[in-house]
């Protein structure tokens, strides 16, 4: 079994953290149902071209946070995760993505106000798009 996980080797986020975040996102998004099998530490390490030490660390953290569980001799499985916790992950992912955008702006010497302006522009264009969709397809009741 393989996971749709991609490592960003240029990123400053440690690799084990990248794995954790992506596995959590797969679980929160419903792509990995409770009870489904995860790849073994050794085979995921081979797929991702990293050491078992790093993969084990990611799995241990995921297990401690209740996202996966390991049964001796049987393997590693996705745990039952409460809806609240899944929502938390999704919210955190959205915040993180927005933060990254703001950081990119700051790196290019934008002021917070300029970034806010850009953000408003994007929001406005998204709202406009949404309105158009409603016009095209009628009311979304």
């Amino acid at each position, binding site marked *: 079994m393989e996971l749709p996980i991609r490592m960003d080797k*240029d990123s400053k986020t440690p*690799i084990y953290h990248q794995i954790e975040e992506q596995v959590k996102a797969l679980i929160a998004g419903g792509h990995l149902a409770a009870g489904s099998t995860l790849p073994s530490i050794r*085979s995921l390490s*081979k797929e991702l*071209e*990293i*050491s*078992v030490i790093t993969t084990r660390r990611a799995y241990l953290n995921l297990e401690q946070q209740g996202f996966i569980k390991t049964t001796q001799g049987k393997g590693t499985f996705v745990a039952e995760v409460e809806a609240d916790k899944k929502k938390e992950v999704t919210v955190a992912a959205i915040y993180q993505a927005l933060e990254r955008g703001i950081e990119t702006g700051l790196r290019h010497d934008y002021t917070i106000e300029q970034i806010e302006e850009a953000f408003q522009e994007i929001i406005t264009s998204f709202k406009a798009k949404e309105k158009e969709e409603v016009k095209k397809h009628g009311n979304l009741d």
Partner: protein
Amino acid sequence: METWIKVKGLEKKLDGFKLGPLDVEFESGTIHVIVGNNGSGKSTLFKQMMNLVTYDKGQIEVMGYSVDGKEESWKKKIAYQPQTLIGCVEFTGNQLQQIISPMYSNWDQSLFSRIVEMLNLPLDRKYGKLSQGVQQKLSIALTLARDTDILLLDEPTAHMDIPSKRLLMDLFVEWMERGEKLMVISSHQTEDIRKLADYLLLMRDGQLIGKYLKEDLSSSHKRYWLAQQLPVEKVPGEIERKNERMVVTSSAEEAESFFEARQINWLEAEALDIDEIVSYMLGGGRQ
């Protein structure tokens, strides 16, 4: 993870070549890949770990037993695959299997048959009549099936075709999952380093440059393209610079604080490929 092989202060002089002093340990549950130039001493080290070649100074311990020829029971815990099997030329694969299998109590006949089938090995032909690649495949089948705790493989896939290499990669992964195992491979194959290695041991001219966790090497080596000209002074960890705008470093973190302190901006930072890092470290420069 336990330390299963300990090498301490190992030294050997041989016709103008000096190996060591080497100090290194190998832990269970991991794959160590030894990478080095030709003649760097990799094969000699393997043979010493098997007590097939003597050494002048130092000591080697395998699973608590001293490797000095007095007590040889530890040999049952190790399967060693040399670059070329000696004394097998006249035997067929079937005969070799009959000779080797009774010597190992864990011999796994079904694993042996599965590898034979998977790699399409002709067991009725004499070893000496097989091509180098097929000889290697047969010898891997004979080695893995011993199901020992430790596997020492000296360039196991050097002569093999690409599809067989891939099959073997999966076999090695599967073998590691049979229990608590230790695998030490010497290899020039980038794929072995990428896909199998937990630790990399770099050797040059009989010396161990170091033992590294694979990701530590990748995260510390970076190439930067700068917005301004490079300062005359060296960047921390600098290994190469070009056009006064591009610099390669082995200490990315220190290099970044160095740039920040001097208000030098970089347009792009790129992680190096593992084979590029190895070439730099073994003195081959950029590929």
